[in-house]
């Protein structure tokens, strides 16, 4: 059950150009969190300053049961993430969570493709970990601007899986889009998980439809409440019926949706 807690930052570390790792002691969140879920956070504002106003949704990158900590990995892109990056160990963070549906893992799949792009790699570590634990054969494709921006690269390399990286500047792996690897796949896939920029996920969804592979995509949308109340975070998802689609809240019905049912701004 999601809740709101105010908990202490244990660690804040710069892990790449504009990329930060934040570790928070939050037993309640740890006790509940499932892979692929997120937290909706707010720094404790000086004297209730209301600018910037809203919370920020960030995926859970690690759940550490022993330490009772969660880890977030985020990229500074605007004012909120900038303020976040200035926080120090000992500072308090206001956290709503764990939120959203998270990824689910099916018994019936064996060969699983996981594709992450940019900061969309952040929620994938716990997923891959679970897939490996469940003895799946995992092919992991990671894309980023530069080598430095491939989140959790070291950790992923410790797993027994097939890992391929693409960077836009060619500083690691193939130069270009991570989706370029799709053509090279030699085997049929049972399932796909993906999280990353919309153009990337669109290509993957089309491929998944073409090759008839089921899967799950974790989407991003601007969020207000994080609890399903405000309808700001809706995503277009195909359904049976008159129009063939409906809007679903990314914060409660998502952020993970069935890959082939997602409609991206079309």
């Amino acid at each position, binding site marked *: 059950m999601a809740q709101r807690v105010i908990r202490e930052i244990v660690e804040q570390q710069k892990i790449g150009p504009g990329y930060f790792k934040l570790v928070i002691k939050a037993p309640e969140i740890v006790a509940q969190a499932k892979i692929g879920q997120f937290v909706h956070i707010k720094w404790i504002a000086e004297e209730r300053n*209301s600018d910037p106003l809203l*919370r920020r949704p960030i995926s859970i990158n690690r759940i550490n049961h022993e330490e009772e900590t969660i880890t977030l990995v985020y990229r500074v892109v605007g004012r909120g993430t900038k303020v976040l990056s200035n926080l120090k160990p000992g500072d308090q963070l206001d956290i709503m969570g764990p939120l959203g549906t998270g990824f689910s893992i099916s018994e019936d799949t064996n060969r699983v493709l996981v594709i992450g792009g940019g900061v969309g790699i952040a929620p994938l570590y716990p997923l891959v970990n679970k897939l490996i634990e469940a003895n799946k054969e995992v092919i992991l494709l990671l894309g980023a601007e530069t080598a430095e921006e491939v989140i959790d690269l070291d950790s992923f390399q410790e797993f027994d899986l097939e890992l391929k990286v693409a960077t836009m500047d060619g500083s690691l792996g193939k130069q270009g889009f991570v989706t370029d690897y799709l053509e090279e796949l030699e085997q049929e896939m049972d399932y796909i998980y993906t999280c990353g920029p919309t153009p990337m996920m669109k290509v993957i969804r089309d491929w998944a439809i073409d090759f008839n592979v089921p899967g799950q995509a974790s989407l991003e949308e601007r969020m207000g409440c994080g609890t399903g109340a*405000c*309808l700001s975070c*809706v995503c277009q998802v195909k359904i049976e019926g008159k129009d063939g689609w409906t809007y679903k809240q990314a914060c409660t019905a998502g952020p993970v949706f069935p890959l082939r049912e997602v409609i991206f701004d079309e």
Partner: protein
Amino acid sequence: MSKVNLAVDLNGLKLQNPVTTASGTFGFGLEYKNYVDLDKLGGVMVKGTTLQPKKGNPTPRIAETPAGMLNAIGLQNPGVDHFIEQTLPGIKDKEFKTIVNISGNTVEDYAKLAAKLAETEIGAIEINISCPNVKKGGLAFGTEADMAASVVQAVRAETSLPLITKLSPNVVDITEIAQAVEEAGTDIISLINTLLGMKIDIERQEPILANKVGGLSGPAIKPVAVRMVYQVAQAVDIPLIGMGGISTVEDAIEFFLAGANAISVGTANFVNPEVTMEILKGLEEYLIEHDYQDINEIVGKAVKSSE
């Protein structure tokens, strides 16, 4: 047990306390159940409801602004029938009063909505004549006194439920509209809805919202809301529900002093999901500290003092 009286009687709409949640910010009442002891709320204005289901606007639907936010949800809702059949049974036994916020494109729409709701177990109908996010109708109703009045009359004819009319701030003289809807038979006035605004992405060089314009809410608009409550309190004799930027108990008290008989919390729920409970507690404390027995004693104090 509370040492002070927080119950209010808004011209027939009896609330156990004057803290309600604003339409569109609190879903259909249950979404915040993990954060709020719902049975402690005075009332919940549910998401704007229409005759037919509505998909709403494309995304992005919100944008952040200095001490505020813009929204252009576009009244996404499953329609009034779905509300009555599926949603209401789940909330009607709560201690809070369920207030159904209705929107239409025509006067007839409003009348039909009222007719459908007339026999249900809700606390009141809130007529939204001020939603800026619907192209047809919406805004116009709330900005012209006779249009506003005719909507209220049409709804009044269909139901004896307490009627709240929600005013738009995008007008020259809000007291004129307030008086018109009072005369047309509304029991209560709620104010304010959002101010029309826009934010532009300077890299993409286009408005951030898919709908281009949206409604501005949050602390930024509080001074405008307080001013309007203060003005309307002097212009009409019916109770007011004040809202617009309320984020703390201090904000809420400003509204009571300006003449609101109850308040509604909107955007602040997003920032702090426990805000309504904090306001409730803070109200009690303020009253006790200032030697009042009853919340009704402070209503309009700032109006009286400055007459």
